[in-house]
Structures are given as C-alpha cells and as structure tokens.
C-alpha cells in the first residue's frame, strides 16, 4: 500500500497552484490536508501525475466573517474551524457536525474545503454546505466563478469543479435570527462515515432537511410549511424517494428507517419549543 509515483509541487500562491492545474489538468490533484486523498493514493485508487500542495498557503488559511456568510479558505482545517470562537453562533449546524468528521487527529489536517471537494455522499461538511445553501469559489487560469452547493456536488466523489480549477474557499451562510438548526447522524462507530446523517433548518414556517449517506450526494428537501402532524408522512415519502441501497453497513430499508427516525428527531429539535431534543 504505497502511492504510485508523482511529481510534487509546493505552491507558494493560488496563482501558482492554478497555473500548475492549467498545465496538467486532470493529471494533477490538489493536496491540502490529504485526509481523503492520501488513503486513496496509498491504495493506488488515485494516480495523479502531479500533486499540488496548497496546504501551506497563508492566503488560504483564513476564516473570514463576511457579514452574511463565513468564507473558509482552502487551507483551513476542520480543527481550525472547530476552534473558531464564532462558530457556535455563526454556523451552529457546522459546530454540531464537526465533532463527527473523522477524529481529532484527522481534523487536525483535514480541510473543510477538501472534505467538500472530496464529495463523499456520507460526509458531514458537504451535508452542511447543502443545507445552508453555501457556495464554492473556484479559481482557474480563466478567472473566478462561484458555484452554489446544489450545483457543486454532482454525485459520488464528483463535483462541478473542472480539472483546472482550484477550490479557494467555501462560503457558508450564517445563521440568522430565528433560524434553528439540528444535526444528527447514525454511525456504527464514533468517527466513521455516517450511515445516515441529517441536518435540519427551520426558518419561519419553512423547514429544510438535508440527508447524507442515502443518495449519491447529500440531498436537501425544503418544505415551505411543515405542520407537526405532517412530518412523519413527509419524511416517509422523502425516505422512499431518496432510494439508497444495500451495502455492508446497512440495508436500504434500514436507511429509510433512519431517515424517518433521525429526520423526525432533527426536525422536532428545531421546533420553537425544542421538543424532541
């Protein structure tokens, strides 16, 4: 279990990193924290010609409060974000989800943007990005574009990021007054990828529920109104719609049950009276 050979480029700026990507395109991979990429390199599931290391770029190591959003640079680790003093108020659902992202040792290196770009359908951070309707800022030699969460993650390990693009930051909308959030997940062991993860948001009458671990990417369902007595039926239909298959960790049926069960608990937890928490 050793990586196949590659050239290693330590970029000193975003510009440099982007230029390497422009040159090598699909044959290059970006290395930030490496907590998703390195296992795949070791197993030779991924064999890039060039690795572009952006982990040490100071310009990407910032968490910026932009007013309505929080911009998380591509070198910000999950641990950095968890330690950010404003996290609990600005991004409460992320604060609740982060302890479930791997273990503290992997959070010490694994980046927020790296997890989002890895696009594992069971990952917590893409789930949060989806629920919050965040966006990813992509830089390339052609310029800068911003892709909303719903268009960013496209399927299993697949995103809208083109091979010559570098995800420079993710933007996560901050919690507004009156918004309430909840996060829950079912794992066989602490720190594992979720069998099913849910994140809920209530804003006025509307309720959103993001579900990870079932479909090929986190999916968000938003109800303009969802009275308490309609929650169970709504979740049941959602569970059946999301599909989900059997694997060694769970069956499709178990996943549907978890969507109903966790979904109910999460949605109830966002109710004004806090029932179900």
């Amino acid at each position, binding site marked *: *279990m*050793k*990586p*196949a*050979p*590659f*050239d*290693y*480029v*330590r*970029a*000193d*700026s975003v510009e*440099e990193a982007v230029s*390497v990507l422009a040159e090598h395109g699909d044959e290059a991979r970006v*290395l930030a924290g*490496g*907590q998703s990429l*390195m*296992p795949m*390199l*070791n*197993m030779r599931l991924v064999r890039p010609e060039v*690795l572009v*290391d952006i*982990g040490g770029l100071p310009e990407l190591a910032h968490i910026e409060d932009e007013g309505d959003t929080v911009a998380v640079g591509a070198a910000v680790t999950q*641990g950095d974000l968890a330690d950010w003093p404003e996290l609990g108020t600005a991004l409460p659902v992320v604060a609740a989800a982060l*302890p479930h992202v*791997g*273990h*503290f*040792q*992997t959070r*010490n*290196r694994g980046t927020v943007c790296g997890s989002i770009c890895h696009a594992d359908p069971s990952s917590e951070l893409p789930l949060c990005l989806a629920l919050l309707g965040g966006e990813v800022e992509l830089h390339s030699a052609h310029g800068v574009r911003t892709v909303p969460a719903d268009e960013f993650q496209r399927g299993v390990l697949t995103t809208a990021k083109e091979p010559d693009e570098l995800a420079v930051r993710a933007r996560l909308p901050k919690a507004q007054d009156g918004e309430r959030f909840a996060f829950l997940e079912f794992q066989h*062991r*602490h*720190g594992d990828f979720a069998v099913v993860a849910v994140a809920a948001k209530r804003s006025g009458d509307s309720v959103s529920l993001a579900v990870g671990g079932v479909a090929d990417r986190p999916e968000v369902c938003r109800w303009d109104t969802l009275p308490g007595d309609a929650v169970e039926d709504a979740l049941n239909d959602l569970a059946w719609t999301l599909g989900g298959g059997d694997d060694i960790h769970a069956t499709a049926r178990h996943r549907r049950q978890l969507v109903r069960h966790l979904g109910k608990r999460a949605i109830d937890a966002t109710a004004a009276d806090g029932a179900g928490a």
Partner: protein
Amino acid sequence: MKTLDRNGRHPVRFTLNGMPEEGFAEPRMLLTDFLRHEIGATGTHVACEHGVCGACTVRVGGKAVRACLMLAVQADGAEIETIEGLSEADGSFGPLQQAFHENFALQCGYCTPGFLMSLSEYLERNPDPTVEEIKVALSGNICRCTGYREIINASLDAARALRERRQQD
C-alpha cells in the same frame, strides 16, 4: 513554487523531538516510512496506512496527526514529536508512559505509540477530561489487545499527573 521530481530523492529536514534530522525522500514516500526507515526512528508504528487505526500518530507542529497520511516532503521544516521524545530528560518514564505502565494499558505495544501521541496533544487541550470525553478522544485509535478500559484509566491518571506537574511549574 518548488517542484520535486518523482524520480529524485529530495532533502527533507525537520526537528524530531527537538533534534535536527535530515534525510532524503522521493515525493511519494510516506512520513511513516521516512521516520522508520530513512531516519531509523522505529518507535512510530504502521498498521493500516489508510488513516483509520491511529497507530502511526505523531505530532507535527504540536498537532496529533496520522503519519501514514502525510508525505515526508510535507514535513520539511516541521517540528515533529514521536514516542521517542516522551521520556524525561533522565530517561525515566514521563507521566503518560508511567500511567500506561501502572495501569497495564498496553500488551503487544504496537498501537501504543499512537495512543500516547494522541493523548499527548489531547491532554494539553483538555487537561481534565471526563471518561466520556476520553472515550471519544481515543476513538481514532484501535487497540486489539486490551479492553480499552486500562487505557482510559491510564489517560485519566496521566491527566492528573500532568495537571499536578503544571501546578508545580
């Protein structure tokens, strides 16, 4: 920008437990292999090479990380700490080692370096953890010999010893 050619062996320099070390690595060489076979610091163990088991945990810049998920070239210029640096200056057991010893918290000892290095950071961040917090903190390290309880007790003992030491300082 610095480009390291895949076929070359490139110098890697860092401090290991406070002492400067130097060796050469191809870009793809894992930090685990570099530590063990290039420098000869075999105290850090390798058990899964996919980041799940925690046996290879070392501290880089103070942070506990999986050495199997880092390239040696990424460690250039870093401050690295491993199990070899845990003893007191006179060679006697440090508080973590002593607590593990007294609690029978190791058997084969293969996973132990990872537990120790994880705890070495964790107990700095959380000097007075509860049992439940310790369990979660240790959930990224697999041991197959003990029943973990010995390790949990050792962690609590070590935390106490470290707190006392801090008070004395």
